[in-house]
């Protein structure tokens, strides 16, 4: 973050705090003036007042009420009345109109007017202010996790300048600077350990509760806490490019997305105030002309104005989404699109990509069966595979551990099948059975070994030289420790679990069996994954879980795409949900969180609709005093926000 942005962030937080403080001040001042009014009104209604006070009652109330409405309530009155000339009406328009009319009846009563609502005016404003204060506070609570994320970043960094240690502001930190982090200190920004070793607590960013060991060459994430050793870390990402900045961006952007179920509520919110203004006017006219009571008509009209609550409707969904997002972020689950939490409910089929999702994605060579000298087999295999970025290729190169490679010409990657190239004059082909069949290379000699490896879940790479098989290298990618637990939970919940992989059927089935997945789609080329997802979608909604880099099209095609991070990198673009750490238990948690959040959304929408549907007709019918109406209004929007906060009680 550059200095400017950092400054703006600090400023923004204080704007929110300033608003809270200002509501609080208005609230206290309003009640200082409103309580005497309330006492006078109650006294007048239920007890006989001395004549002297009775006579001065209205002027006293008008004087006491003036500051409440026109000074402490100035912003509301101004904002509300502005609506009458811009024609953008908001909640304030209702309150402003209601209170101003009520206040004016006090003056009119001197001209023989029938009713006086001037005391009511101050009470409405005071209750409104109180309601807004409580609501703002509850909204602050709803966003507490997200606020914590915003404040998580380090402010200072200690770096090496030559041989000297200097402390610099985080904004002065540059890529390539070597930071020194002592035990208990926060790692200032993303980087690579160049010296020292330690365990680092990454829970605040990834949700991973166990400390992660770091040594020379390890990637570390900014804002995580160094536990026990001194680390020298070379900064690799700063400002907006850091891991934390990306998480914040994802979470914030998600708040701007819509959940489809809120469409109706949003539509109503957008026309709510003008409609209520019209309804209040009609109600007033009806009570006046047909009912023949002007005084009563004004009271009922005011009640209609102040009871209507667009906030409960408009806040019902976004406030729940906010609490849900915050809870998720704490556990390393990022909700990117509000739509996903609604769609999740309909998901029946969960498709897992194998490599990097179910397995660790770090394959290692486990067995070699060679028909020639093993060293020779490895040497030519590694020489070719050195040119490929594929994880299996890397495993072979690592296993060979060569210092010098043979020169390879005409190298080619055959996607999903293997590689080929020439060493000297010899044609080398390395890959799976499909590739061997394609090239008409006879692998029957080693078929028994191949089957044996594959039945134990290993991937086999057949090596051939000049059209003849010379051996097979078996590579295994260990299953993540918690995959079995996560998948059994999903199976128990009634999901159809499917694994999709480029591996051959035998290897795939062995791995699927190990983790408890019942269905396997094997031999799928990377580019065909999306097509397979589409086919599955014919029988129900599909959630696809993959790494977000190679699987982007499949993630997009699925109804809910869940992208898995690797712990130091998050797949930003693809995926409706993003899991920061690569654990499959996160998938179970993400599903539970989505469902719980969506239930909360439905509850809130129900209450908001029910409130307005019941309360507005009651006000029109004239059975609610304006003060009661205002209390009900304040209570309804507080209820919605508080109910959303209750989501936190849910164990995910």
């Amino acid at each position, binding site marked *: 973050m550059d200095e400017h*942005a950092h400054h*703006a962030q600090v*400023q*923004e937080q204080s*704007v929110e705090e300033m*608003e809270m403080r200002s509501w609080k001040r208005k609230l206290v001042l309003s009640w200082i003036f409103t309580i005497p009014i309330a006492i006078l009104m109650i006294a007048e209604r239920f007890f006989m007042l001395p004549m002297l006070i009775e006579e001065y009652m209205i002027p006293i109330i008008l004087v006491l009420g003036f500051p409440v409405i026109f000074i402490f309530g100035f912003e509301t009155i*101004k*904002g509300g009345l*502005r609506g009458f000339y*811009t024609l*953008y*009406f*908001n*909640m*304030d328009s209702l309150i402003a109109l209601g209170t101003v009319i009520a206040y004016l009846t006090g003056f009119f009563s001197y001209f023989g007017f029938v009713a006086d609502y001037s005391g009511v005016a101050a009470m409405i404003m005071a209750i409104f202010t109180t309601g*807004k204060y409580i609501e*703002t506070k509850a*909204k602050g609570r*709803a*966003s507490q996790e*997200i606020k914590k994320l915003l404040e998580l970043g380090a402010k200072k960094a200690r770096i090496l300048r030559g041989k000297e240690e200097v402390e610099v502001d985080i904004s002065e930190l540059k890529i390539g600077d070597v930071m020194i982090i002592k035990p208990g200190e926060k790692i200032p920004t993303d980087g690579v350990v160049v010296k020292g070793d330690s365990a680092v607590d990454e829970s605040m960013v990834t949700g991973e509760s166990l400390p992660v060991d770091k040594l020379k060459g390890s990637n570390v994430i900014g804002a995580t806490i160094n536990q026990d050793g001194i680390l020298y870390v070379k900064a690799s990402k700063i400002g907006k490019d850091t891991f934390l900045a990306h998480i914040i961006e994802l979470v*914030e*952007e998600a*708040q*701007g*997305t*819509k959940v489809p179920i809120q469409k109706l509520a*949003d539509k109503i*919110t*957008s026309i*709510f*105030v003008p409609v209520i203004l019209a309804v209040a006017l009609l109600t007033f006219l009806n009570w006046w002309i047909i009912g023949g009571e002007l005084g009563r008509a004004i009271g009922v009209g005011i009640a209609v104005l102040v009871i209507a609550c*667009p*906030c409960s*409707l*408009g*806040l019902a969904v*976004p*406030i729940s*989404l*906010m609490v849900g997002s915050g809870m998720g972020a704490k556990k390393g689950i990022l909700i990117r699109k509000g739509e996903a939490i609604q769609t999740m409910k309909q998901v029946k089929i969960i498709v897992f990509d194998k490599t990097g999702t179910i397995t660790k994605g770090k394959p290692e060579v486990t067995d070699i069966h060679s028909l020639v000298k093993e060293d020779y087999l490895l040497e030519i295999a590694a020489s070719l595979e050195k040119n490929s970025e594929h994880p299996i290729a890397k495993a072979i190169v690592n296993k060979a551990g060569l210092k010098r490679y043979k020169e390879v010409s005409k190298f080619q990657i055959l996607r999903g099948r293997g590689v080929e190239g020439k060493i000297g004059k010899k044609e080398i082909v390395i890959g799976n059975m499909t590739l061997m069949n394609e090239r008409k290379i006879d692998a029957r000699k080693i078929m028994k070994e191949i089957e044996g490896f594959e039945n134990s879940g290993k991937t086999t790479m057949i090596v051939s030289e000049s059209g003849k098989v010379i051996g097979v290298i078996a590579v295994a990618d260990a299953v993540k420790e918690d995959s079995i637990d996560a998948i059994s939970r999903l199976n128990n919940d009634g999901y159809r679990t499917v694994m999709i992989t480029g591996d051959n059927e035998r290897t795939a089935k062995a791995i699927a069996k190990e983790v408890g997945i019942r269905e396997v789609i094997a031999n799928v080329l990377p580019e065909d994954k999306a097509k397979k997802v589409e086919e599955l979608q014919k029988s129900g909604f599909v959630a696809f879980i993959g790494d977000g880099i190679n699987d982007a099209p499949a993630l997009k095609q699925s109804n809910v795409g869940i992208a898995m991070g690797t712990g130091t990198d998050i797949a930003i673009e693809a995926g409706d949900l993003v899991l920061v750490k690569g654990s499959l238990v996160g998938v179970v948690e993400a599903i539970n969180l989505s469902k719980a959040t969506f239930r909360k959304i439905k509850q809130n929408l129900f209450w908001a609709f029910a409130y307005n549907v019941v309360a507005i007709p009651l006000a029109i019918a004239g059975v609610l005093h304006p003060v009661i109406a205002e209390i009900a209004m304040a209570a309804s929007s507080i209820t919605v926000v508080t109910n959303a906060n209750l989501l936190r009680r849910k164990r995910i």
Partner: protein
Amino acid sequence: MKKVKLSISGMHCASCASNVARSLKGISGVKECTVSPVTNKAFIEAEDNVSEEDMKKAVAKLGYKVVKVE
């Protein structure tokens, strides 16, 4: 096309947010706009020629203030 994020102060109800979204969408060249009544942020997708000033004006017209543009 560009994406702009505005932080807006002074909105304290759901209809405020809905009004701001309507006002911003009224600018020609603004394709998509959502305003969260919770975070008080507007997310805008607009043609490159839509200026920050236009957006600020659309917000100010309703009596709110843009405190930060990203």
